[in-house]
Each structure stands twice: as structure tokens, then as C-alpha cells.
């Protein structure tokens, strides 16, 4: 009898253990006929997330029988989360991605649905989106992603400091240096740089590489299979950046300052400039209204690259190739990027949309309209270096930039390391 009780107890314990393992899939999914699309985006903060909640509500109302279940992860977390979920059956149907190499990594592994047929079936949709936004999501002439935002990088400056010293927006690198020298003379640090996480310096190098290295060479180098990084332009780019630091144009302690701290220094007028993204313009309008202007990275006089490029990139959404309901997933994506919904997104969130006409003087502050105009006038985009090259190379390149600023490594040493890692990856 006791033995039986013991056996029974064991069984109860065992079932108890495994009860926790099942049942996760049985979350309420509406009626059983409903199709559910899983949607993963990058903006977990309340305000941005709320916008997507309301957009989904509208979509579900217009498309009875289709439900969208939403999940999100922040900027840094997204880079890891997306790689992890793509390997599981939990992978989302519609998911956020940066453009460039980051997206291409998924495309090459066959994880992404080719959207070309959908775009060709609806040329109106295709033509409504700026080419500068679509192009970085292309591979072998096919479209794999729809841009949702298009971003550019600009120097934002304090107008008062510029006026007091009779300075104007610099067009060339030498003008830039003389502006910085003048500001330094007034006792204010010319540029605020928050490089505790090295993506900040990487955004400088993104632009400097593009301006210093011939376009076709850089293009080949950034591709994993053909990367060499032997052009002297790369070293020149690092030297230009190092010069800013050596001459004391950045505030003290760049490697222990966080980007947001640098912004606060700008608002507190402790630094005269910061290098920021278009999507941050809204904050400047809020906290520094009317007292700031912006200019793109100045041209480098003897640079071998195209000087009319702008640093920046679109980011957007892709559809999983393993989605059970690709048509509905694409329909949802199309819904998000209609002119009407994009305009609303611009109005609510203040993000630069790549949909033609979505950003206009009626729904956006003048600074955003002007910024986006600069983006559309640029002859091309220099995509963020850390998402445009193989991640393992950027893993060597980026931390080295901190050591460059600390004078622990020289530009030559850094490029040698980059060449070595590039060789190793090619050999794999």
C-alpha cells in the first residue's frame, strides 16, 4: 500500500514538473479561424508602442479574421533578439531590420521573403517609397524589405555660439577645423561625443570612410567575400577623426560619456555641437527651440569618395520566408506604409518617413522637413558602418575606435587588425 502511495506521489510530482512545459501555445488567439500575424518592432517605449497598438487596431478592424500579435525589443536588445528568434519556430512574420549587411545576413540564409512580386503587382505602392530607402534592402536586384524610417546624420550646432563668433556652417573639412579652433578658443568644448558604447565614433567613421575611399573600392571591401581594406583612404579617415581628438575638439572623457550625456551637455551649452540623427531632431525642437541649426559632415577636399553622400540609412521591416500567411503579412506591411498612415506616423512620432509626401510642412516641424530634403538631395547614403559590414569585422573595428581616442592604438594598427579579421572570415 505504502509503495503504491509512493508511486502515486512520484507520478504526481513528475506530471507537476512537466505541466509547466506545455500549454504555452494555448494562449487565447481569438476564434480558431483567425489568422495571427506575429509582428516584432524596435520601439518598446510607451509613446511609440502606443502608436503601433492603435495602428494594429485599425488594421484588424479593416481586415476581419486577421489578428496581429505584437512584440518589441529595444535598440541594443533587438540585435540579439532577432538573431535568436529567427532560429526558432517562434519567429515573427513581420520583423524590424536595419538595412545593409544586417538585413543581408538574413537574406543570404534564406530567412526573408522576396517582396518583388508584391511590389510589382502594386507599382503604385513601390513608387510611393523613396528609392534611397528601398535600395539598401535589395540583394541581387530583388526587394527584401520595406523601409519605415529614413535616417540621416547631421552636426547640430548652437546658433548663439556661432553668431557670437561670426561663424557660418562649414562646407569643407578645413573650414570645419577652423570653426572648431575658434570655438575652442572661447573655452567651450566644440563637439560633444559620447563614445562609451563605440557606435558613436563608428558613425563618424561611416562618413569619413565613405568620403576618403573610392566608392567602388569601399563597396567591394564591405562585402564579406571581397573585403580587403587595403586602401590608404581608411587610414586617412581614422587620421581625420583622430585629429579632432588630438586637437582637443571633443569634450573631456569621450570614452566614458554616454550619448545622452553628450546631448545634455549640448542643452546645457557646455559643448557647441553634437553629431546626431534626423530622428533626434524632435528632441532639439522640444528642448532647444529655434536656437539650433544643422549641417551634414563637411566635404573632404582631397577625399577619393563622393563628397555628396550623406551618412545615414533607412530601417524598416522584412517578412519571414517561413511565414504561414505571407499575403496577410505583406498586407499588414502595406497598411503601415500607406501615405495616410505614414503621415499619421510622422505627426505622432516625428520620424522621417521614406514615403513620398508623408513628411510635409503641415505635419512636421521645419527642421525635419529640411533634414529630409537634405536626405533626398544626397547622391547616396553611407550606411552605418556597424550594420553595413560583417558583424565580426565591426566587432574588431568598433572597440578599436575607443583605443584610437585613448591613443592606445594607431590608425595603421587598427587597419591591420581589420585586414586580418577580414582575411579570416573570407577563409571560412
Amino acid at each position, binding site marked *: 500500500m505504502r509503495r503504491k502511495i509512493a508511486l502515486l506521489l*512520484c507520478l504526481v510530482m513528475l506530471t507537476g514538473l512537466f505541466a509547466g512545459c506545455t500549454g504555452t501555445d494555448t494562449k487565447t488567439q481569438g476564434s480558431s479561424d483567425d489568422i495571427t500575424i506575429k509582428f516584432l518592432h524596435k520601439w518598446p517605449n510607451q509613446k511609440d508602442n502606443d502608436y503601433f497598438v492603435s495602428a494594429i487596431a485599425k488594421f484588424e478592424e479593416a481586415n476581419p479574421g486577421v489578428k496581429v500579435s505584437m512584440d518589441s525589443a529595444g535598440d541594443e536588445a533587438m540585435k540579439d533578439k532577432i538573431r*535568436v528568434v529567427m532560429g526558432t519556430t517562434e519567429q515573427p512574420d513581420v520583423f524590424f531590420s536595419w538595412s545593409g549587411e544586417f538585413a543581408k545576413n538574413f537574406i543570404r*540564409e534564406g530567412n526573408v521573403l522576396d517582396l518583388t512580386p508584391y511590389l510589382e503587382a502594386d507599382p503604385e505602392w513601390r513608387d510611393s517609397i523613396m528609392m534611397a530607402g528601398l535600395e539598401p534592402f535589395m540583394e541581387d536586384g530583388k526587394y527584401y524589405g520595406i523601409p519605415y524610417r529614413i535616417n540621416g546624420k547631421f552636426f547640430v550646432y548652437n546658433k548663439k555660439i556661432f553668431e557670437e563668433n561670426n561663424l557660418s556652417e562649414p562646407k569643407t573639412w578645413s573650414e570645419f577645423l577652423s570653426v572648431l579652433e575658434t570655438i575652442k578658443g572661447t573655452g567651450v568644448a566644440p563637439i560633444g561625443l559620447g563614445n562609451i558604447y563605440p557606435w558613436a565614433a563608428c558613425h563618424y567613421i561611416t562618413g569619413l570612410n565613405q568620403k576618403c575611399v573610392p566608392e567602388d573600392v569601399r563597396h567591394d571591401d564591405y562585402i564579406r567575400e571581397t573585403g580587403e581594406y587595403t586602401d590608404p583612404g581608411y587610414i586617412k579617415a581614422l587620421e581625420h577623426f583622430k585629429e579632432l581628438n588630438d586637437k582637443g575638439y571633443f569634450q573631456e572623457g569621450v*570614452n*566614458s560619456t554616454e550619448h545622452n550625456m553628450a546631448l545634455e551637455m549640448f542643452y546645457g551649452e557646455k559643448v557647441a555641437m553634437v553629431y546626431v540623427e534626423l530622428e533626434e531632431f524632435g528632441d532639439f525642437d522640444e528642448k532647444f527651440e529655434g536656437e539650433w541649426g544643422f549641417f551634414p559632415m563637411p566635404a573632404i577636399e582631397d577625399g577619393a569618395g563622393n563628397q555628396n553622400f550623406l551618412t545615414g540609412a533607412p530601417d524598416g521591416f522584412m517578412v519571414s520566408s517561413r511565414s504561414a500567411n505571407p499575403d496577410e503579412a505583406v498586407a499588414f506591411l502595406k497598411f503601415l506604409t500607406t501615405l495616410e498612415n505614414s503621415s499619421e506616423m510622422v505627426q505622432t512620432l516625428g520620424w522621417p518617413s521614406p514615403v513620398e509626401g508623408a513628411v510635409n510642412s503641415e505635419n512636421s516641424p521645419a527642421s525635419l522637413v529640411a533634414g529630409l530634403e537634405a536626405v533626398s538631395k544626397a547622391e547616396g547614403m553611407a550606411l552605418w558602418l556597424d550594420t553595413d559590414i560583417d558583424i565580426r569585422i565591426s566587432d574588431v573595428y568598433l572597440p578599436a575606435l575607443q583605443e584610437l581616442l585613448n591613443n592606445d592604438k594607431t590608425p595603421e594598427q587598427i587597419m591591420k587588425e581589420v585586414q586580418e579579421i577580414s582575411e579570416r572570415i573570407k577563409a571560412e
Partner: protein
Amino acid sequence: MKLYGNKKTALLFIAPALLFVLLFIYYPIVQNFFMSLYRWKAFGEDRIWVGLQYYRRIAQDPVFYTALTNNFLYALISIVFQVGFGLVIAAILEETFFRRFQGFFRTVFFMPSVISITVVGLLFQLIYHPSIGLLNNFLKAIGLENLTRAWLGESGSAMYAIIASSQWQYIGYIMLLFLVAIQKIPKELYESAEMDGAGAFQRFIHITVPQVKETIIMNSIITVIGGFKVFDEVYVMTAGGPGRSTEVLATFLYRSGFRNDEMGMASAIASIIFVITFVLTLVQLYINRKIAEE
């Protein structure tokens, strides 16, 4: 009535837990080792056999040795400060004079350990900031200007800065564990020692320390293992920078697996971490038994 002597029943009772441990701990350890022999991606299908290539690469990678050194530093400094000073503080708070204020100090010292690491990390980023930070401004105020530096921004000081913040956070926790142990020591021991003319220091050395021996061992194990598991502090405060100077084994693993998507490499690092912590645990168990035998 032979329930206690019945081995079959006993086995039956431990079977669920045993199964659980086998399935979720031992099996993954073995599996992890096999996975370190392949090149594979989290979201790709194909696996390529590379043998021990990742282990060779790790052995040649200077970052691995940086990480290992940092972990050892972390464990060593934590033992000195948390276990050493934690015990001293606990003993002081138990002194007759301080006992009246014990509640206050206990709370003050313990408080940091309940704050989320993310918050502590951001807090210390500000404290360590070269121009607006509390630490440098304090040093300037007392005339030690030549000691100021960009604490988290320089390779030489960044790791120590992180370790220091961790001591601040956890010393109170370890102290609390010691307080509980000290309170269990029979008062008669102290009274008779006092009658024999023992001073506060002698009482501490000859009564308190031997009486809380087991707690010292336990706390040492906690801090050493903590030193090798450390991740959040580094990830939040410097993410391994500047350069790779504050990399620890866990961030090294994380970077390889989830950032660079070299899952085989990450598995290899995980296997190495397992071996290191396993050996350390064996050493500690051995010391533990030696002391128990005395």
C-alpha cells in the same frame, strides 16, 4: 514500515529531481561541448565540422586572457572587500556601543544590494564621469587633482572602477549574512573572554572568526562564483570597452554568440567557463572538507 530503508522507494522519490537535473543540466553540458566542434549560426540550418579550431583560436586570442584576468581580479578583490571587510563591519555593528544604531547601519549598508544593477550601472557612469562626475570633483575639491582621470574611459582604470562599484553594492549583503552568524554565537563565550581580560580585537580573532568559519567559507564560495559569473555590471557600464579592456568571460561569450553569431565559438567559451568553475568548486569542496575534519 521499512519505508526509510527501502532503496527502491528512495530512488523512486529522487527520480523526478534526478531526471530533471540530467535533462536540464548534464545533458546540455555534454551537448554544448559537441556544439563547440561545429561552425553554426543561431538561425542557419547548416553545421560545418571544425573540430577543435575554436579552442585553438581562443587560446591565441588575447581577449580571452584579458577576460580571464578580469574575472580573477573580480573574484580576488571581492573576497578581500566583501568577505573580509564585510565580516569586520558585521563584528563592529555587533559591539555593545554600536548595537543601538545597528538597525540604521544595517539598512544603509544593505540597501545598495536591492537596487537593480542597471540603475547602479547608470549611477556609477555618472559618478565616474570625468567632468561632471562626483568622484573627480571630490578629488579636485580636496586638492588631489593629479588623481583625477576618466575612470571608465581608460583601459587602466575601467575594470577597477567596475569592480569598485560592485563592492559598494554587495558588501552589505555579505555583511548581513555575517551578522546573522555572529548573533548565533553564544554570549557566554564573549562574557568569559571578557572576564579573562580579552580586548575587542582578541575577541574578534579568537571567538568571532572561528565561530563563523562556515559562513566565511560559504560567503567565499558565493563571491568567487559571483566573480566568474559577472556579466551585467560590465555590460551596463562599459559593454567591454574601452577597446576590450573590461571584457569578462561572460561578455566574451555573449559577444561571440549573440553579437557575432558564432555559436560554435560561444559554445567553446562556455565549455571553458564550465571547466574553470568546476575546478574551482572542487578546490573549495576540498578545503571545506579539510576544515570540517579538523
